[in-house]
C-alpha cells in the first residue's frame, strides 16, 4: 500500500476520488442554492444550519478545503508531468479526430474554474468567515442585536447578484464547470476501475449532471439579478 500516490495509477485514483467528492459537494451546494429561488425562508434556515453547525464547520468544511486544494494541485502536477512525457510536439496533430475538446482541455477549464473559485471565495466565503470568526457574529441575522431580525443569507445573496458584471462572470464560470464535468464525470469512474455494463448509463447520467447542474446555477444567478432589478 505504501507509495501508492507515487505511482501514475495511484495519483489517478486519488484525483478521481477527490473529483467524486467534489461532484457530490456541488450537488449539495446546488440543492441548497435552488432553495433561494423557491423558498427563501428555508434557504435561510439551511444556510444558518450549515454556517453554524460544528460538524459542518469544523469537520466537513476543512475536508472540503483539503479536497479542493488537492484536486487543483494534483491537476497541475499531473499536467506538468504529462507535458514532460512528450518533449517534442508534433508539427501536425489532429486531436479532434479521436477525442473531445473537453477531454483535451481539462487543465484550461480547470484553470478558469480556479479563477472563478477565487472570486467566489472573495464574494461569499471570506466575508462569511470574517463575520462569524473575526467579528464574532454567529447570529446569522441582519441586525445581530435583534433576535427577531430576519436571517441575512438570502438578503446578501440577492444583493451580490445585483451587478450584471458579476452575473456574467458567474455564468461564464458555470460554463467552464459544465465543460469540465462533461469529461470529468465519467473519467472519474473510469479511473477508479468502473468500466462495465453500467458505463453507458453512467455516461448518460454524467452528461445530464454536467449540463443540468451548471445550468441550474446560472438560472439562480439570473433569477436573483432580474428579481432584484424589478
Amino acid at each position, binding site marked *: 500500500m505504501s507509495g501508492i500516490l507515487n505511482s501514475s495509477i495511484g495519483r489517478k485514483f486519488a484525483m478521481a476520488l477527490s473529483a467524486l467528492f467534489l461532484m457530490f459537494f456541488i450537488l449539495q451546494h446546488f440543492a441548497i442554492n435552488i432553495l433561494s429561488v423557491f423558498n427563501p425562508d428555508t434557504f435561510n434556515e439551511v444556510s444558518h444550519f450549515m454556517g453554524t453547525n460544528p460538524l459542518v464547520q469544523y469537520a466537513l468544511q476543512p475536508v472540503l478545503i483539503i479536497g479542493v486544494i488537492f484536486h487543483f494541485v494534483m491537476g497541475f502536477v499531473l499536467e506538468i508531468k504529462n507535458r514532460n512525457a512528450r518533449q517534442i510536439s508534433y508539427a*501536425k496533430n489532429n486531436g479532434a479526430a479521436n477525442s473531445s475538446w473537453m477531454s483535451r482541455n481539462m487543465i484550461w477549464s480547470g484553470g478558469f474554474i480556479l479563477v472563478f473559485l477565487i472570486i467566489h471565495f472573495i464574494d461569499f466565503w471570506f466575508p462569511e468567515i470574517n463575520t462569524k470568526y473575526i467579528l464574532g457574529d454567529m447570529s446569522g441575522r441582519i441586525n445581530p442585536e435583534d433576535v427577531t431580525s430576519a436571517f441575512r443569507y438570502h438578503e446578501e445573496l440577492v444583493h451580490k447578484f445585483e451587478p450584471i458584471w458579476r452575473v456574467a462572470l458567474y455564468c461564464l464560470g458555470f460554463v467552464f464547470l459544465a465543460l469540465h464535468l462533461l469529461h470529468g464525470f465519467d*473519467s472519474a469512474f473510469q479511473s477508479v476501475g468502473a468500466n462495465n455494463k453500467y458505463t453507458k448509463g453512467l455516461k448518460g447520467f454524467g452528461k445530464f449532471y454536467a449540463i443540468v447542474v451548471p445550468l441550474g446555477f446560472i438560472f439562480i444567478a439570473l433569477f436573483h439579478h432580474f428579481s432584484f432589478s424589478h
Partner: protein
Amino acid sequence: MNLTLKIWRQKNANDKGKMVDYQISDVSPDMSFLEMLDVLNESLVAKDDEPVAFDHDCREGICGMCSLYINGEAHGPDRGITTCQLHMRKFKDGDTIYIEPFRAKAFPVIKDLIVDRSSFDRIQHAGGFISVNTSGNTIDANAIPINKHDADDAFSAATCIGCGACVATCKNSSAMLFVGAKVSQFALLPQGQVEATDRVLNMVKQMDEEGFGNCTNTGACEVECPKGISLENIARMNQEYLKASLKG
C-alpha cells in the same frame, strides 16, 4: 496523384532534426502508404540522397513495426489499421501529407521516422508473462475450463501488437492502454493468477520509470488502436493495481 510530403528527417538520436519537403508524382491510389515511401526512397537513392528511414516488417498489419504519425494521427486517417494497411486512395491529388515519428520521451528517435520502442519490451519483462511447468507435467491449457466471456476478453486484450499508437496518440504519451491490455490478458485467466499481484505492480512501476505520462481518459488511444483494444482494459488494470497495492 501528385503529393507534397513533409517528412521528419533526423540523422541520428543526437541530431536536432527538422521537417523536410518532398514532391512525389504519379502515385497510384492502389499503393499502400509504405509502397509510396518505397517509391520516394528509390527516387532519393537515384539522386544520391539519403533515403528516409522508417520501420516496417510484415506489411500485413500483424507485427506492429510500422509506426508513423500521418497528418496528425497515428497510422494515418483510417481506423483499425496499421500504416502498412493504409492506402493512398485515402488521400487526394495535390494533398500535403505530414509524416512524423511517434513522439514520446519514452520512444526516442533513432533515425528519421524510426523510434526506439524497447521501453515496451522492458515493461513486458517486468511482468508480462506466466510461469508454466514444462517438466513433463504441463497441463493442457484447453483442459482448464474458462468462462466464455472472460476467454473472449482475454483474447481481445491479447491482440495488442505493441505498436505504440496509443502512446503516440495520447496527449500525455501514456502507455496505459498497452499495459492495461497486457495486464488484462493474464488477469482474466486462471493461469495468470499466480503472479497477478507482482505483475501489475511491477509493470506499472516499469511504465512509470520509462517516463510515460498519466492517462486522463481522453479515449484517443482506443480510437487510434489498430487492434481495437478497449478502455475497459485500463479500468481493469486500475482495479488490479488497487487490489495488488492493498495486498502488498
